[in-house]
């Protein structure tokens, strides 16, 4: 009954999306306010129905109704409740339902909080959202219906893939989707602007908070996925340049570029045409990511060819939306008026440089991800494009980007003073040189590249801090004045500084982890001692335990440093009987930002167990960096300028409301 209700709600949501995608457009054409307002009510109603549908699927998973194919294939009655719920999006059908639910959520948010938008713009934006939603509802209903029943219900389910039974992966997909799908808003705004043929600074001010929100979620989502891979896959890697990861990195790079170009558009009314293009590209890359992960094309080009229903459907959606929006862009972009002038050395110029490098870096990732697929389709040759390719292309492009990063906030709009900016960055430059010199002396000719990279990171962080110090007149004025000025500083300025510093911090983590990572791999018997980076790990013994839906072998290590016992670490290996597969649960010991990482291999006949121990210096900075970036984004989002929004048309009723 629940399944049928959920299915029916989804069909109704499709109907509403179809109305939403047509009626408001007619209303905008005829100038009919009532018809344009249909967009608002249908968007909200659509959200209601798709939420009902999603709730129905969650209910089915919670009560373990194995008469539904989706529940049978991905759940097990013994699975903990948390993973019963998160298992909903641990499979294809459920994750697509989550995707459209989030799409409807964003549409609903625009409908609910977009009261200050011009009526026709809102109608257009919601109509475009309606098109996307309708396409994906159709996709779900036609090819991946999560509510299908089995004729003769089995007693027990097949269980969720054990590596997915983890809290990190439970939160990761929703975060990532909030990011992916959030960019649909800037896409809809861009298409609406192209349809209307009108775009101004106010447009950028409406779009920026949505883009920023999507970017924050995507940043956190990617970081979380990376941390999950680090501790769950059991060998301490945190980024593999796997196509699935690249699929999420590409929209992030384009979205970061979009954030920056939208600033230029908002402040200076320039780069309009480019910003529109970036909005379209960012969401297109999100769609591409969905296609890559969901069509099975990565699992195998042949699997895609033999079971083409889903893949071809998503490919059609992809071509329709990307092709359609780009054609519209080619047709209408010339109608948009060119914006303000600026010299190459200026804040605008710096932001253009940022865009240039980010989009180029994005393009190299794109090539590295799709080239093997294209080659396999065309010639049948199989190649793998791995980390070396991306290190050789992505790395060199990020170096100038980061070197230029501290300069941008110090340059004035329109015409900047590069020499002046350089002078104000002297302190940061000196800090970077000191860091390089110290590291060089300390490692004494070990790695030459690492100290330079850390120097760059220190330059970025110190540059962000000195920009703040400069603006608050810290060290120049009395502390009280500086405090007052710090409070008066726009939150967006703080946000920029935090986000930029976050990039530097992540870089330090990446460099330290890859350069000074030390490891011990060997087989150990009880009472054996392994030494890694000064730590001593003694294997106390191995015990067995029965979990809810797995058996677990736990090894206990006592960790000591200089004869002093620190803690006990208990890595384990879980065996999931239903699927006959096992997972490695690594044990982590955090010391500051560094971690000791222990994971287990197989046991041999004499009772010795294969053990992998890593010491990863400053590894946590890799994820603290993105968290700081997201925090900076959040600060920026709370900026008064963005909350107040674009100038509102004066209305009597509005004036009576309390101030925000």
């Amino acid at each position, binding site marked *: 009954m629940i399944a049928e209700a959920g299915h029916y709600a989804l069909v109704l949501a499709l109907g509403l999306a179809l109305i939403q995608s047509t009626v408001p457009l007619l209303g905008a054409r005829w100038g009919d306010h009532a018809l344009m307002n249909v967009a608002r009510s249908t968007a909200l109603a659509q959200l209601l129905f798709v939420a009902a549908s999603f709730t129905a699927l969650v209910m089915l998973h919670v009560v373990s109704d194995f008469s539904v194919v989706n529940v049978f294939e991905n759940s097990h009655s013994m699975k903990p409740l948390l993973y019963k719920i998160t298992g909903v999006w641990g499979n294809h059908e459920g994750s697509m339902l989550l995707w459209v639910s989030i799409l409807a959520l964003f549409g609903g948010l625009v409908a609910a909080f977009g009261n200050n938008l011009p009526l026709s713009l809102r109608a257009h934006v919601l109509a475009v959202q309606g098109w996307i939603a309708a396409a994906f509802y159709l996709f779900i209903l036609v090819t991946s219906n999560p509510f299908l029943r089995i004729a003769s219900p089995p007693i027990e389910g097949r269980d969720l893939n054990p590596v997915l039974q983890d809290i990190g992966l439970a939160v990761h997909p929703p975060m990532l989707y909030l990011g992916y799908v959030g960019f649909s808003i800037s896409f809809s705004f861009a298409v609406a602007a192209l349809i209307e043929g009108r775009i101004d600074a106010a447009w950028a001010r409406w779009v920026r908070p949505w883009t920023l929100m999507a970017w924050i979620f995507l940043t956190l989502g990617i970081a979380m996925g990376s941390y999950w891979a680090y501790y769950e896959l*059991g060998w301490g890697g945190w980024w593999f340049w796997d196509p699935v990861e690249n699929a999420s990195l590409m929209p992030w790079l384009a979205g970061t570029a979009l954030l920056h170009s939208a600033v230029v558009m908002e402040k200076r009314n320039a780069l309009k045409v480019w910003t529109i293009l970036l909005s379209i590209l960012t969401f297109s890359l999100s769609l591409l990511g969905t296609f890559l992960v969901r069509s099975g094309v990565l*699992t*195998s080009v042949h*699997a895609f060819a033999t*079971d083409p229903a889903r893949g071809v459907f998503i490919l059609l959606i992809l071509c329709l939306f990307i092709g359609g929006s780009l054609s519209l862009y080619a047709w209408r972009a010339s109608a948009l008026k060119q914006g303000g002038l600026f010299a190459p050395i200026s804040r605008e110029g710096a932001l253009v440089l940022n865009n240039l490098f980010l989009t*180029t870096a994005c393009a190299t990732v794109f090539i590295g991800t799709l080239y093997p697929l294209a080659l396999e389709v065309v010639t049948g040759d199989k190649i793998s494009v*791995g980390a070396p390719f991306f290190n050789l292309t992505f790395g060199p492009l990020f170096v100038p980007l980061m070197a230029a990063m501290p300069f941008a906030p110090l340059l004035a709009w329109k015409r900047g003073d590069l020499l002046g900016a350089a002078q104000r960055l002297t302190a940061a430059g000196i800090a970077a040189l000191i860091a390089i010199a110290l590291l060089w002396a300390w490692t004494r000719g070990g790695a030459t590249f690492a100290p330079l990279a850390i120097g760059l990171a220190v330059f970025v962080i110190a540059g962000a801090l000195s920009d703040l110090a400069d603006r608050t007149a810290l060290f120049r004025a009395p502390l009280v004045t500086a405090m007052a000025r710090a409070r008066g500083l726009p939150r967006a300025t703080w946000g920029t500084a935090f986000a930029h510093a976050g990039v530097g911090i992540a870089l330090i983590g990446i460099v330290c982890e890859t350069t000074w990572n030390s490891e011990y791999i060997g*087989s150990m018997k009880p009472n054996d001692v392994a030494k890694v980076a000064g730590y001593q790990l003694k294997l106390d013994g191995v015990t067995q335990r029965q979990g809810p839906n797995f058996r677990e072998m736990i090894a206990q290590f006592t960790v000591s440093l200089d004869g002093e016992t620190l803690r006990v670490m208990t890595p384990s290996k879980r065996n999931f009987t239903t699927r006959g597969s096992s997972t490695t649960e690594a044990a982590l010991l955090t010391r500051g930002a560094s971690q000791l990482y222990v994971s287990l*291999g197989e046991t041999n006949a004499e009772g010795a167990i294969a053990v992998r121990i890593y010491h990863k210096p400053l590894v946590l900075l890799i994820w603290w960096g993105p968290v700081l970036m997201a925090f900076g984004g959040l600060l920026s989002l709370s900026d008064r300028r963005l909350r107040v929004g674009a100038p509102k048309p004066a209305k009597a009723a509005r004036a009576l409301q309390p101030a925000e």
Partner: protein
Amino acid sequence: MTRKQRRLTMIGGSLAVLAIAAALVLNAMRDSIVFFSTPTMAAEKQIPPGKRFRLGGLVQPGSLVRGDNLAVNFSVADGSATLPVAYKGILPDLFREGQGVVAEGALDASGVFRADTVLAKHDETYMPKDVADALKKQGHWKDDYGAKPGAPAASAPVQGASK
């Protein structure tokens, strides 16, 4: 500067960055791309010792020999040819005899494949995609691999070990 000059500066700068990026990509394509072979293909192509490639196939049942200090020897077979593989380190959880595997490394002078990375794919069927494709092509694969594309929801479904 006039508007035209400014625009030229912009376009020139963008072209310069794009050219650098293209050079980087081409350079990286030449040096860091690794081809995939099955034992049969490796024999046909006569891959010289020292050239890195990815070897894929099934772990020959009964061929797994564990030595001291986590040294492992096994053979990779694809139905018509086998190739001995030597590896030192911990094998991934999903590694087992009779199942698909992908190893990256190079042949040594005696014709043994020295692997520095061994990968196994997380999937109900334990079959890395390259292996499944190659085996299908050679007609040694019956089960319909990939009937359920994209079973794991997100990141990095590849599990591996490298030393």
